[in-house]
């Protein structure tokens, strides 16, 4: 089997050009899916039999919470690839993920807090799910802080990658916290064995559309940031002149 395709992803000029070409192919479908998901979630879906109209908060809370752990996983895996194969582009991917992931963790915590007040009667509780999600935010901030502490990009890459990989341990804790411990937070609605707890298609479909839309949106933002990160790392490369001219 030829590994040339894999090696191409290690080539900064190839990645820079590929990222620029692919961005609109993720951005526009993401925008359309988000609009469709908003319409489905806010207008088409019927009110919940227990939570009434308030349940519509899941259409932003679930996608942001899902992104917070999905982006961390992407960051941790990219950091591991960067450490193992000494791949500059993989470190650039990890570095690009961090601010996006951190901002969506803040969104997940904030929307969760607003969801919690009317449903549980409190904005915050030191509950396993909430606490492990807060730890995830600190991991992102620690990763970003550690990176900025080094002037040398390569040393920043290696040190922060170790933290990102070790922090991966929090991802299953966030996901399974509601199953392992007696949590105030409800059990997973979608990712569980058997049938999801949301049965009605008119409730479930907008949620799935939103999750897909937010995933494509993340890829688009990641590709945009990746171009900047790759360019920053390239000292004195002749392709940079070409890339800047176009």
């Amino acid at each position: 089997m030829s590994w040339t395709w894999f090696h191409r992803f290690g080539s900064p000029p190839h990645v820079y050009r590929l990222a620029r070409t692919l961005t609109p192919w993720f951005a526009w479908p993401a925008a359309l899916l988000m609009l469709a998901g908003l319409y489905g979630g806010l207008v088409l879906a019927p009110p919940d039999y227990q939570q009434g109209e308030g349940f519509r908060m899941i259409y932003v809370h679930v996608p942001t919470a899902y992104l917070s752990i999905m982006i961390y996983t992407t960051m941790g895996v990219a950091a591991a690839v960067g450490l193992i194969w000494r791949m500059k582009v993989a470190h650039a991917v990890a570095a690009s993920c961090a601010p996006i992931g951190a901002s969506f963790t803040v969104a997940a915590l904030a929307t969760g807090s607003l969801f919690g007040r009317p449903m549980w009667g409190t904005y915050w509780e030191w509950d396993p799910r909430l606490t492990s999600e807060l730890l995830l935010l600190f991991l992102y901030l620690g990763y970003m802080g550690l990176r900025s502490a080094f002037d040398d990009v390569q040393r920043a890459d290696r040190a922060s990658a170790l933290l990102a990989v070790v922090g991966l341990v929090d991802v299953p804790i966030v996901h399974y916290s509601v199953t392992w411990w007696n949590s105030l937070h409800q059990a997973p609605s979608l990712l569980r064995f058997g049938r999801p707890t949301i049965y009605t298609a008119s409730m479930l479909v907008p949620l799935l559309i939103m999750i897909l839309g937010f995933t494509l949106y993340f890829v688009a933002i990641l590709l945009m940031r990746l171009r900047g990160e790759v360019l920053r790392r390239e000292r004195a490369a002749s392709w940079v002149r070409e890339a800047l001219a176009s």
Partner: protein
Amino acid sequence: MTALMHFLAMGGYARFLWPCYGITFAVVFLNIYWARRLNARARTEAKRRLATRQEEVVYE
């Protein structure tokens, strides 16, 4: 008009639900802005580096 008011009231959950959507889409748009700013800065820095290198070549 009453239909719109009814929709905006969200069965009494308006003061929790709309900030939820507001925060989420603020983060969505902020990330677009931050990514564009990062790219613009990286391009400016790269251009400056290239210009400095050219000068070095001229004076050698």
